[in-house]
């Protein structure tokens, strides 16, 4: 083996860092607009009534969720893979022109896919299934992008020098397999141009339109098996992959326990899928499926907290770093939000709690403390760690980073506290009866009461967006005017102490 350190090639990682930031801004900006539309409905026609169709809450809502999931998060996953993968497998992408080509093609097709999604959702072309709104032509494009990601990943694994796969790689592999399976099965649909009438004519209507292979209750079951686990394999598994690499690297601490990581990985793989039924409590899916969903949601606390505790204990004896380094702050608070969110979720999955919480803003709050506090913080931390090593420049401003951290933390806290109150208030009002057994409130009463909470939530979201713009600015300045630095000057420990 050569006697000098490997020169890793970050071309593709850089490209995906760019889309992480751009789609992050788009997704979060739309989110803030949506939040204020609920508080102040006149914002629905902010660009005039002629364009109202495209600025309207319901048309923008899937664009927000998809921009954040398939734009920001997925870009972050790809960016970190093209960085972490090479380093833990001890192989450079520059060693294989084939993998380099696949990586670039992966990026180009991904960008085309994102553009197609944005335009189609604005035009109202949607299947309506949450986080699976894309019609069949885009589904096919997404499958191709995913296959390229797989070739990229397993190609790099195939030519690795480090024979043993590091924990992060386990999670990236699981991300690939989980999403592939879920996406394929949930998007089984038949294009309606195939519909043929009695006299042999077909090809009517919009060519991109399709119908789901599943009807009603079955469709719901498959959708939430997917929807819940898109969260698992998009918002949990790859983010855990990131923290297993970046926290030890940044802190110089070895992972606390290998056995705990083993337990939480295989535990998460086995348990997560069962819990999908908790989205369908009191619905028309079979009762035993609902109960299984509830029970396994509670069991899910174990592997989730296993990872989170492993991370927090990795900092054992080094807590002064949390005070000293804004980057460590992001990751430690991220793990904490992960713990919080994975406790809150199971609580909401208990049937009697779910009876109040389901359909309310408490669920929205739950999603956001996970995504803003855990996913967002971790991806930004990963990019902050990568930037000096990828661009060979020091982070432009540490104090800006610290300010960003506090602004965003305040934003997340305002977000989930207001949604918590809003959700429980509305849930309780829906079910309230007066002394004669009549409903105590009309539906509109339960909407107008939420106005202050919607406003606070909007402010919380806005703070988070402001922080994200500071992040984007900081990375931009790092790229263009940060002090030049070589990697050997940067503190960089090996994960697992190996």
């Amino acid at each position, binding site marked *: 083996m050569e006697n000098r350190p490997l020169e890793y090639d970050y071309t593709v990682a850089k490209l995906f860092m760019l889309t992480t930031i751009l789609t992050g801004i788009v997704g979060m900006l739309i989110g803030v607009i949506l939040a204020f539309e609920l508080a102040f*409905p006149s914002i*629905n*026609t902010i660009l005039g009534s002629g364009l*109202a*169709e495209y600025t*309207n*809450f*319901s048309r923008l809502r*899937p664009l927000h969720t998809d921009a954040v999931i398939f734009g920001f998060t997925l870009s972050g996953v790809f960016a970190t893979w093209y960085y972490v993968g090479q380093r833990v497998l001890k192989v450079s992408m520059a060693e294989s022109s084939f993998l380099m080509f696949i990586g670039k093609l992966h990026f180009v097709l991904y960008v085309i896919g994102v553009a197609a999604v944005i335009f189609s959702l604005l035009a*109202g072309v*949607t*299947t*309506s299934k949450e986080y699976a709104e894309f019609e069949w032509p885009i589904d096919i494009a997404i499958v191709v992008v995913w296959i390229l990601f797989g070739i990229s990943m*397993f190609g790099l694994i195939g030519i690795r020098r480090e*024979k043993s*796969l590091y924990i992060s790689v*386990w999670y990236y592999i*699981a991300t690939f*397999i989980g999403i592939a*399976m879920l996406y394929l099965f949930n998007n089984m649909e038949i*294009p*309606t*141009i195939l*519909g*043929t*009438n009695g006299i042999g004519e*077909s090809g*009517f*209507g*919009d060519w991109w*339109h399709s119908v*789901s292979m599943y*009807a*009603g209750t*079955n*469709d*719901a*079951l498959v959708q939430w*098996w997917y929807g819940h686990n898109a969260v698992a394999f998009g918002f949990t598994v790859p983010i855990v992959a990131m923290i297993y690499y970046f926290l030890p690297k940044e802190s110089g601490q070895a992972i606390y326990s290998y056995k705990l990581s083993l337990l939480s990985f295989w535990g998460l*793989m*086995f348990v997560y899928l*069962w819990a*999908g039924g908790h*989205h369908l409590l*009191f*619905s*028309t*899916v*079979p009762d035993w*499926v609902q109960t299984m969903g509830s029970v396994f949601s509670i069991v899910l606390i174990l592997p989730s907290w296993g990872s989170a505790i492993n991370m927090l204990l990795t900092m054992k004896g080094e807590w002064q770093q949390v005070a000293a380094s804004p980057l460590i702050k992001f990751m430690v608070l991220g793990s904490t939000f992960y713990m919080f969110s994975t406790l809150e979720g199971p609580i909401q999955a208990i049937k009697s709690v779910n009876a109040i919480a389901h*359909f309310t*803003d408490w*669920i*929205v709050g739950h999603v956001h403390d996970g995504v803003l506090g855990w996913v967002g913080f971790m991806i930004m931390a990963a990019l902050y760690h990568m930037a000096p090593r990828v661009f060979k420049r020091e982070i432009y401003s540490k104090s800006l980073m610290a300010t960003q951290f506090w602004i965003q933390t305040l934003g997340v806290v305002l977000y989930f506290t207001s949604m918590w109150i809003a959700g429980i208030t509305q849930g309780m009002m*829906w*079910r309230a*009866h007066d002394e004669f057994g009549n409903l105590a409130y009309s*539906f*509109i009463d339960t*909407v107008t009461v939420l106005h202050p909470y919607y406003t606070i939530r909007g402010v919380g979201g806005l703070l988070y967006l402001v922080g994200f713009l500071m992040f984007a600015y900081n990375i931009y300045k790092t790229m263009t005017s940060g002090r030049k630095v070589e990697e050997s000057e940067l503190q960089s420990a090996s994960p697992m102490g190996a």
Partner: protein
Amino acid sequence: MFHWLEKHPFFFAVAVFLAVAFAGLVEIVPNFAQASRPVIGTAPYSTLELAGRQVYIKNSCNACHSQLIRPFKSETDRYGHYSLSGEYAYDRPFLWGSKRTGPDLMRVGNYRTTDWHENHMKNPADVVPGSIMPAYTWMYTNLADIDTAYAEQLTVAQFFGVPYNKPVPMKDGSKLTVKMGVDLADAKALALAEAKLITADMKDQEIKDAVAAGNIPEIVAIIAYMNSLK
């Protein structure tokens, strides 16, 4: 075993797949056939209703409105009988939603009229003071896509055996036959005939004129769909 897997990526991936796929097999497969059987009184959507359903989906109405009544007194008081699995037999995709920013619509056809929807969609706050629902003014000018609705009817009849042009049992013991066009012109004629029944209860002269001239604005289709939800 785990150490061995960590050195063999292929088998590692297979093991992950098995761990992940197991739950789906156990939870989803057993009830699949049973859950898709219609209950008595459930009929397929007519061409215009289906076009309206597509308008509903196009505008992501399901982002704020559920179509799932849970078996609680507070919900059956507010929305009507709790939902039954077989009532969704012809719903592709399902539209249960996951958030009730607005009320449930599973049985909205029982307690809202064409007239009410016509005014409400123009400006919800005029009808329900304090409403935060946006106005859907473009539905009054955009035309409903009957071609795609017809294509969808043909597709579900062909691939899933949805009983168009066949009698289906109703709750009162009678039979109902939902017609599907022999060809596109026939489908459009059926939709137009249905649209005229809707516009008879509407006040907007421009909408009435459009339908009289053979064009069906989206608002007419979505009202047909709303009225079918019972």
